[in-house]
């Protein structure tokens, strides 16, 4: 007996539900294949349009925050000046030592025939938006393709690495923060050169994975990029080790928590290192 639905309204409903089911099947397949290239221009136009609104909305709160911080800063300015003067003296001594090291380094490089690193142009950008899902650590900044930004470029703040660019429209870019669950960066422990991978743990936190139990790791150890992932150049500061535990007996690796050098939940301005390195596929 053929499948028949008498009521025209019911028929429309059934067909629509069937259409939605088919759509959802395509969605599930799409989850595996990724978004088609044809929709990219539409998506990027939407990202640009939304970015301007986000910029407008985030502006007043950013100015308010700056004003408040300026007021707080004034209150401690005398004490801070005293500390800073002492710090300047210390730093001048250090600069002297570094200059010597730099000259020696250049001399050794010439001797060994090692090429100088290609210098990167930097672009400053303001954070205008955050991800809709609170457990995903991505932000939107107000610089995009027209400024030379491409996916897979390094993003830093004053203190250290923030993350990498993952999508760019004409005027805005999305950045994957170090603390995102999908983020992974090849790193070194600066003191003993032990290798590991910095992974995101959400909530502005990171952990250092794949460091064997035999490796000596101490709280306060500085973690820097190793340069082996072809995205982050070697030597950029990621953060410091905040806790080390052995983990359970069958585990091969230590459990190492790392506090990022940058407060990833409060970052407001970033610097993108624009390099001419070969395009590197982002995590998508």
């Amino acid at each position, binding site marked *: 007996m053929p499948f028949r639905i008498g009521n025209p309204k019911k028929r*429309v409903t059934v067909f629509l539900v069937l259409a939605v089911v088919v759509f959802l099947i395509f969605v599930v397949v799409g989850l595996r294949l990724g978004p088609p290239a044809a929709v990219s221009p539409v998506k990027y136009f939407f990202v640009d349009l939304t970015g301007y609104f986000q910029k407008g909305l985030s502006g007043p709160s950013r100015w308010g925050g700056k004003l408040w911080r300026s007021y707080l800063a004034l209150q401690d300015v005398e004490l801070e000046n005293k500390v800073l003067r002492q710090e300047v003296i210390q730093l001048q001594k250090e600069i002297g030592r570094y200059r010597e090291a730099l000259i020696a380094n250049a001399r050794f490089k010439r001797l060994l025939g090692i090429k100088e690193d290609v210098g990167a142009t930097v672009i400053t950008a303001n954070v205008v938006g955050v991800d809709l*899902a609170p457990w995903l650590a991505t932000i*939107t900044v107000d610089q995009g393709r027209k400024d030379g930004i491409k996916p897979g470029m390094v993003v830093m703040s004053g203190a250290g690495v923030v993350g990498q660019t993952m999508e760019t429209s004409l005027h805005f870019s999305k950045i994957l923060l170090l603390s995102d669950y999908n983020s992974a960066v090849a790193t070194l422990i600066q003191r003993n050169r032990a290798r590991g991978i910095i992974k995101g743990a959400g909530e502005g936190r990171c952990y250092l994975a794949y460091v064997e139990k035999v490796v000596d790791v101490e709280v306060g150890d500085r973690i820097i990029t190793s340069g082996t992932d072809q995205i982050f150049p070697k030597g950029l500061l990621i953060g410091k080790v905040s806790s080390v535990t052995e983990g359970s007996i069958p585990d091969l690796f230590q459990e190492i928590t790392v506090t990022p050098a940058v407060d990833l939940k409060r970052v407001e301005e970033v610097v993108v290192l624009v390099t001419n390195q070969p395009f590197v596929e982002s995590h998508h």
Partner: protein
Amino acid sequence: MNAYKKALVVIFLGYVLLLIETARGFPFQLGQIRLDGLVPLVAWYGFQHSLPGGILTVLGLGILSEQMSAMPAGLYALAYTGEYLMIRYILSHIVCAAAWQQMMLVSFLSIEVVAVLLIGSGAAELLWPWGFVQAFLNGVLVPFWFFIFDKVNSVISREDMWCGVKEHSEV
């Protein structure tokens, strides 16, 4: 107000909510949870609008949400469509007139939305307790969100808002 206008109102409200919730500096995100107006918006729409046309609006809202997130493609559409379909199914069997019933229903359906989003994005371990806290919060805030949506709807649906285009008038 006809179905098309209603759909436009929902898309407009959804876009405004998305902008506010993702604009930097707004206190809409508190750790792993957020003050989410989108799940209540889908529920509010589901309470009022029946299945044939309504589902396309909800799909549109889901696709719109995806543009504001690094979430894998299709997850928001999947989650919101599921919520809408469940609301229509439940309303065809029971009446959810009282505010507390609506709060409970939205809480219950929020679990579905949060579960789809968390599991789909590989963060299933956050389902307990954060997913449930989020669902509870969505339910508790239903009277507030529904009040806002009703107000905005009544303002937008005034006939003079539509440049003199009048509803089908009675003779």
